[in-house]
């Protein structure tokens, strides 16, 4: 089956700066695809090229197998949910949703019934006559999506639409957006700088940095098997050490950190050589806490340190451990068992993790 959206060697330069640098990807029909990256990485540029508000410097964009480069935005079979939603303040909800249908020249009674259907679909029946300014943040969100969906686009683009919402609502809208996507069975392309939005909703995620895709994969891929140091650092939290590689054998390696500590990690088939500078990333939840060294015997990385501070945050509580050699603070997840509830600032703790959890990348790229 041809993918709904396919970008081929897409490049966009502004002056001599490349905002998007030779990016290719395909989004299969009916899937939820996210582009995740820090602000200024070029994700908005990609989205605006797909919508037709920017012309690519080179490369091509196919929608359902046909190039749309010569199609103006008002004729492209893609619609966009804008960052600030761009609901028309001079129209009521029904007029907003019916806008595109009116442009397509549909008869009035038909528009009315389509609008009602759309309102039912988003769970807001009967709000058609309301003003846009009377809606709550979540309702506006849904109306903005409905306004596009009545046009039955091949691809729906969403430009960080949750950014303006407060935290609670954002959490709820994540679930709701995913459900809406399933209900409409339309291809969604979603851009965001918020990893949790991307991880929760997407079938596949592209992590973008400085105009290029670093890695494309499922949320699990990105989280557990990052392919670049940038992805390892950007997706999820990590402790990070820099140093020089002293030994490599198969998938295992050893690195001497800049503070002099010997640390074991895994190369995950990346070409790394002895003497090379490298970074090791270890997730806080991969590190175990213990009262005695015996409990950590099966780990090949063991450190003794003092609790620098306790960061209580319910299920996500952590401690910061200052290691005895003074090489900086290490973030460690507190187990939920309550076993270490009595831990105080200043207590001595032992921590350890297996070398396989230490993801090692050649330095200099992130």
């Amino acid at each position: 089956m041809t993918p709904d959206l396919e970008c081929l060697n897409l490049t966009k330069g502004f002056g001599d700066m490349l905002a998007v640098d030779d990016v290719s990807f395909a989004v299969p029909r009916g899937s939820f695809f996210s582009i995740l990256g820090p602000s200024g990485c070029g994700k908005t540029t990609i989205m605006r090229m797909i919508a037709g508000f920017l012309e690519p410097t080179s490369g091509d964009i196919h929608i359902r197998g046909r190039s749309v480069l010569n199609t103006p935005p008002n004729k492209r079979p893609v619609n966009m949910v804008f960052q600030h939603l761009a609901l028309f303040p001079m129209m009521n909800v029904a007029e907003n949703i019916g806008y595109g249908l009116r442009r397509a020249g549909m008869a009035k009674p038909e528009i009315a019934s389509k609008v009602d259907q759309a309102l039912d679909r988003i769970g807001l029946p009967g709000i058609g006559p309301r003003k846009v300014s009377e809606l709550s943040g979540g309702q506006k969100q849904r109306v903005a999506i409905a306004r596009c969906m009545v046009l039955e686009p091949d691809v729906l683009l969403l430009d960080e639409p949750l950014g303006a919402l407060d935290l609670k609502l954002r959490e709820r809208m994540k679930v709701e957006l995913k459900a809406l996507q399933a209900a409409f069975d339309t291809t969604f392309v979603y851009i965001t700088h918020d990893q949790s939005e991307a991880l929760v909703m997407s079938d596949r995620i592209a992590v973008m940095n400085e105009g290029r895709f670093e890695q494309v994969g499922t949320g699990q891929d990105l989280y557990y098997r990052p392919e670049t140091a940038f992805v390892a650092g950007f997706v999820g939290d990590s402790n990070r050490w820099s140093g020089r590689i002293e030994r490599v054998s198969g998938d295992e390696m050893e690195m001497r950190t800049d503070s002099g500590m010997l640390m074991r990690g895994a190369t995950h088939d990346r070409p790394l050589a002895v003497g090379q500078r490298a970074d090791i990333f270890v997730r806080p939840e991969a590190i175990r806490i213990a009262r005695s060294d015996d409990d950590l015997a099966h780990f090949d990385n063991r450190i003794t340190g003092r609790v620098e501070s306790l960061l209580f945050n319910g299920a996500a509580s952590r401690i910061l451990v200052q290691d005895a050699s003074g090489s900086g603070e290490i973030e460690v997840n507190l187990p939920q068992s309550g076993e270490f509830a009595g831990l105080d600032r200043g207590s001595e703790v032992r921590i350890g993790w297996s070398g396989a959890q230490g993801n090692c990348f050649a330095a200099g790229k992130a």
Partner: protein
Amino acid sequence: MTPSIPQSRFVTLAYTGYVIAFFVFLALPLVVVAVFAFNDSQFPSLPWEGFTWNWFFGTERPMIGVFHERPILRAIGTSTFVAVFVSILAVGVGLSNAFLFNRYRFPGQGILYIFMLFPLVIPGIVLGISILVFSSRVANGLWDVAEWDVEALRPGLLLVILGQFSFIATISTLVIAARLQKFDRSLEEAAMNLGASRITAVRTITLPYLAPALIGATVVAFLMSFENFNTTLMLVGSDAPLTIAMFDRLKEGSTPLLNAVSLLLMLGSSCLALVMIAFQRRG
């Protein structure tokens, strides 16, 4: 149409051309006035008789320059005098009004606010005659009752100042109120929390914050007063401000002297406008 929406080259070119034509239309009369200030001729029109500074510095008839033409210099002085008073009054009252509408809630406030806007929608000439009629009636009344002749209530500079003030005060109020509206009152509370009295808080925190608006309002009031014609025309006495003096001369036929005065006016007001913009930027 925004830059992001593709347009045909022809549409873009035609649109740009239209905008350029508009600015030519805006600039043309002013450029013409400025250029003919240097024409070595008795008339501000073609043919071009050559370049001269005489309309500025000339001392001999028939080409007496602005800087030696006593009536014009006097008129500039009168205008400045009036404008200084009008701007002081208008900014003072405007500041007071801005605080009144921003800080107090009292019955009838809404109506009073709307009433305050009226001077903007009253034609200037009507403002002029109403004040003329009223002040003359008061003056006549005083004479009838007490044989007391109050010269100030007859057409003259006091009435010109009051007449201009009557609508410029609305504008200065709006300019100052707009900035006061944006002021975060918690700054004043913070100052009081740090030991300032209410008055000191206003003086040390709020007034400095309002400074750009106060300067802006002063410049606008000064320029509006200097340029005012309609209201002034009805209230003027024997001392004519510049616009009236120029109008009288223009009716008799123009010489490039008027161009020279106009050019100086343009330069003067541009300088003031630049000062204001500079202060606005800093704020």
